[in-house]
């Protein structure tokens, strides 16, 4: 999460990929265990595991780059895409409320999905897999309060 003078800029949390990072650790751990036990190791084993690890790290980082969310003083902006980017803006004036949804795994690692509801109720925007979602919602509400206070004057 990155704050820049009243703006909040977030991407998917890397905690989303913990399962994949665990896979890498399991494979490296297995290799070390095989070496520790003095068992024969296939000559391609290290290369295969390192290639897999590299692939997973690159793939998850690329996936992260695909979505970003920004809260500024007037709206939430969701940018989606890699080369051609689609940008959606959710004005604070259209937002009714928001809530956080977390499963057990997400609660354990403190990340989750923020649901942003609109007055129309037909639409809900999901801001998925953000780190510290309650901090995100608090920041959003603070911004909305400031925005509405400014409009009311």
């Amino acid at each position, binding site marked *: 999460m990155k704050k820049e003078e009243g703006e909040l800029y977030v991407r998917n949390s890397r905690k989303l990929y913990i399962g994949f990072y665990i896979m890498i650790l399991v494979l490296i751990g297995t290799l070390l265990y095989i070496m520790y036990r003095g068992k024969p190791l*296939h000559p*391609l084993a290290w290369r295969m595991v390192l290639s897999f690890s590299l692939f997973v790290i690159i793939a998850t980082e690329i996936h992260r780059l695909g979505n970003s969310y920004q809260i500024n003083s007037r709206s939430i902006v969701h940018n989606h895409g890699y080369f051609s980017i689609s940008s959606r803006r959710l004005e604070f004036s259209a937002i009714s409320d928001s809530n956080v949804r977390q499963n057990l795994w997400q609660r354990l690692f403190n990340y989750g999905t923020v649901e942003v509801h609109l007055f129309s109720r037909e639409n809900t925007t999901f801001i998925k897999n953000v780190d510290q979602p309650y901090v995100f919602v608090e920041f959003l509400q603070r911004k909305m309060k400031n925005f509405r206070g400014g409009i009311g004057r």
Partner: protein
Amino acid sequence: MNEPELIKDSHQKKFSGGFFISLIFIGLFLFLVYTSFYDTAGFTKKISGNFIDAVDKEDGSEQLRIRAELDIPDQFVVDSSARKLSFKLKEAAAISVGTEHIDLEKDASFIVDNFNGRFIVAGGAISQLEGTASEVFVNGISLKDKSGETISISFDELTYNYARFDEITLSEINYAARGILYVNEDKLVMRFNNEPFYLEDYEGNMELGRNYLRLEGKSGELNMQKLFKKYSLNSSY
């Protein structure tokens, strides 16, 4: 007041590669476990020739992969062929290549390609070498027959600092050795302390230093059985 802007659901795609990565992970994990804990020769051997427990010979019998680091025998006779003999000389020596007599200086390098013949290794020296070769290199300079035929090579004695014989075949190595022998990628390790070391039909590389002999190659199963019997071991380990 600003007009509300309606925004459609922005359902972010799940990480669709996750299933694919999980499948690769499971496959890789099973591969590691299988090749290291359960596979003795089959699957590994089919994938790579570099990692072999038992090597099939053409006649269907099996050979064992051996690696040894031992002291140098007092004397042994080599009567066979080797892809390459390499020597780093300790002292000056005289050799005959074809019809030419060449004086080699101290520290000269001397390489013989595709050797076929006989020599004796004794006390840090090679003696009574007689045979043929496809090409000879003296300090990197090539000597070979113009017509492409093999050339004769001989010398009485050559002392070395280092000698290496690549892809040599030895009918027998038999002496009281000190050192260590690894069989089949260290599955069996034997230490020798002035005890009989016996190998027959050895194929592989041999390296001779001032006080060590290194072997890395293959030996027949039958020979190992003799070795096991000598030490009351079961060859079906």
